């Protein structure tokens, strides 16, 4: 039996009783001082591997979630989310791949301005939030994705996004293009 058994029990109980992911920070506060929280979580993750419920880590949060291969059990319960507009999906994708990213940068990539409803709807879903200001003229605010976004799409961090490198390589700044167009 693990020497961390009491800590594991506490984490199990907390995760079970919460629908939303629990922050690691919170666990650190609740667990006895000097607990090796990361090790305990890793052990626990291993323990639940291959079981009907697994332990997921998204960013600085962890949660219990049903195993993905058992989705057939829930066919009746499935709630299809109302589908997002194309603008919202594209905006979300750009934020996820390029975060932290400014509104102007999103507009440059999409070639159109971002309608206000778009940002609001993503904020309402709590999939995006404001990030730090960028150190460029005007110090614009940036957008970034949330833990809830990661949780929803079953990602443990934005580093897990498919094709991240390809997207990064294509870059975001297109000022050059516009300038060329303008100076001819």
């Amino acid at each position, binding site marked *: 039996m693990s020497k961390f058994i009491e800590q594991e029990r506490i984490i199990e109980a*907390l*995760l*079970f*009783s*919460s*629908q*939303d992911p*629990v*922050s690691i*920070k*919170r666990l650190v506060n609740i667990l006895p001082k000097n607990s090796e929280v990361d090790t305990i979580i890793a052990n626990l993750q291993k323990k639940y591997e291959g079981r009907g419920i697994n332990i997921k880590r998204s960013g600085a949060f962890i*949660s*219990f*979630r*049903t*195993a*993905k291969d058992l*989705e057939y059990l*829930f066919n009746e*319960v*499935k*709630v*299809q*989310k109302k589908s997002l507009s194309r*603008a919202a*999906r*594209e905006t*979300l*994708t*750009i934020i*996820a*791949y390029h975060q932290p990213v400014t509104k102007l940068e999103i507009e440059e*990539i*999409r*070639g*159109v301005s971002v309608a206000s409803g778009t940002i609001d709807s993503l*904020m309402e879903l709590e999939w995006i*939030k*404001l990030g730090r200001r960028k150190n*460029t*003229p005007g110090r614009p605010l940036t957008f970034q994705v949330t833990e809830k976004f990661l*949780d*929803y*799409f*079953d*990602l443990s961090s934005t580093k897990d*996004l*498919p*094709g991240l490198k*390809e*997207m990064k390589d*294509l*870059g*975001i700044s*297109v000022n*050059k*293009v516009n300038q*060329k*167009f303008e100076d*001819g």
Partner: protein
Amino acid sequence: MNNNSQEIKTTQYIEEREQTGFCLNLDGYEGPLDLLLSLAKNQKVDLKKIQLALLADQYLEYIKEVKDKVKLDLLADYLVVASWLTFLKSKLIIPEEEINEDNVEKINELLALRLQRLEAVRKYEDLLFSRKKLGENFFASGTPREVEVIKDDIITLDFIDLLRSYLLIGNKKNIQFSLDNKKNYLFLESAISFIEKKLLANKDWMLIQDLVREIHTKSGAQIKSCLASMFCGSLEFVKSGKIELRQSNVFGDISLLGRNK
């Protein structure tokens, strides 16, 4: 599989266009870049090798067809791009020795890059949304505690929440208050006369911060307002050619130099 779905999407796009011909409302496109991308895909070549001249023709033709059928404001963006393309095309058909070929090539490349980028967003958007999703493919605990546990509610506060709660206070009291600390402002006229005096007295480069600090001490106006007015004032003098402004890098120091006699 991913390539496949991409292909299906593309063909759908093309079919849609073919069916509706040029009656398609521009609303269907998310801006000129989107339209350009779908036209470029019709060329059925690698996006890196698109032919700008051909693309420009297609685009212009399309715009000509729809321009009477859509709202003007919507069209504005499209017309800007149309004028770019017209301009670029004119460069392309001018006899070779007269144009800087490098330049045209570069523009072609950059346009291709923009299209590739938008295409990549589309591709990964599809991949993202085809992932297993919470509440659809996997599930959270169905028996959360009665007391809404977890989420230490302080943790979820962000500064939009702060701003909202601030505005709520305003609404409650039915008053409007400003987020700025409205104290003393330095008027532009005072800044201008101050700069003028300084110009007469000085023949060297001066740091604008030093001037700002000086007038801030003298006038007691807010430092921010001092900076803004001093900067605006300097621009007035630049316009009339009386001073020169210099800033070596972004956020770097700004200095000014009088140029008259």
